[in-house]
């Protein structure tokens, strides 16, 4: 599996908002890197974490499971989770798995940041 190509980079867009840029695949094997990125993003005063899926190559059901776990961690910290850059197919997967009821999905970064 091409796990080495998977990258999660954290950007600070304001004191309260962090963006996690996702590149590559999200599978169950991505757990450590994803949770490490969330740990870096979730510093004091952060109220929203935005997931940027523009660089997403592939996600399997293990990856969706990881996003649910990340969501629970964020809810515990009273943080909002937003997403943008999902392809039409993965938007449908978010609907199918009903992840869209807890993650607010936007077309682009500007819309996600405005909603954060």
């Amino acid at each position: 599996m091409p796990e080495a190509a998977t990258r999660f980079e954290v950007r600070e867009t304001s004191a309260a908002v962090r963006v996690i840029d996702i590149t590559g695949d999200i599978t169950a094997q991505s757990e450590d890197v994803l949770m490490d990125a969330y740990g870096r993003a979730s510093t004091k005063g952060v109220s929203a974490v935005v997931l940027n899926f523009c660089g997403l190559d592939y996600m399997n059901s293990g990856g969706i499971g990881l996003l649910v776990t990340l969501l629970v961690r964020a809810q515990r910290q009273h943080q909002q989770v937003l997403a943008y850059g999902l392809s039409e197919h993965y938007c449908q997967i978010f609907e199918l798995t009903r992840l869209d009821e807890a993650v607010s999905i936007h077309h682009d970064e500007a819309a996600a940041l405005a909603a954060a």
Partner: protein
Amino acid sequence: MSDDQARPSATERSAARAATNWAKSISRLNVSEVPDGAVNINVTGRRLTSPIQGFGKMWQKTYQVRLPAEQVSAIDLIATWKQRFPDFWPDGNRFYGPLTGIEPGEVALLNMSLPGKMKLSTGVMVLYADEESFTLMTPEGHMLAGWITFSALEVDGDTVAQAQVLMRASDPIFELGLTLGGHRQEDHFWQHTLTQLALHFDHEAEVDTQVVCVDKRRQWSRWRNVWQSSAIRSTIYTLGTPGRACKRLLKRDRPAT
């Protein structure tokens, strides 16, 4: 045309793989064919539920068994598991899979035995399936809200078969049931399944079990899920069996007009 032009790009390959491996988007479940002997009372028309829609504490349970890789590869193991999925289950539990097998989007009916000789009818949908894994997701009314992923991986000369459950109890009654022995029963169910899977490949092995409570909070706003409880509806259906039999008899005895 050059080879590069003819060959799909990595992005196109990933998109094609995703379209093949994931179930198509649906709003409610539909059972195309009810096999003989199966009860379909809690599946058709139901929506799928992830752990986000569940009631109880959120759990991640991982059951693993190791087999020598020279005995079976990860891909062959998953192919066998998909093909013979119900064969490895404990007695008294029936999985009525679709004739097409474990394919994304297919719905299977489950008739389960619970403590106290209670029968429970529900189902699952195949959310995702590839060569190395497949995932079943539960509908509203199922005892668990979430999914279970079956996978295999080759590690240090071994093929590791794994069942991983990510779920919450769907309503307060099932949450109580899990606390009063349901967790133990579920652990036994998947340990038995993995033991039988390993035995199918002539290998006796201990099942390693890891249980993590991902979220200790209960989602009280979801208590209303109880209205769709498959336990309650299955019990009402069972209690109504004599009445339905009488009705059928009366219909048969009535002369045709």
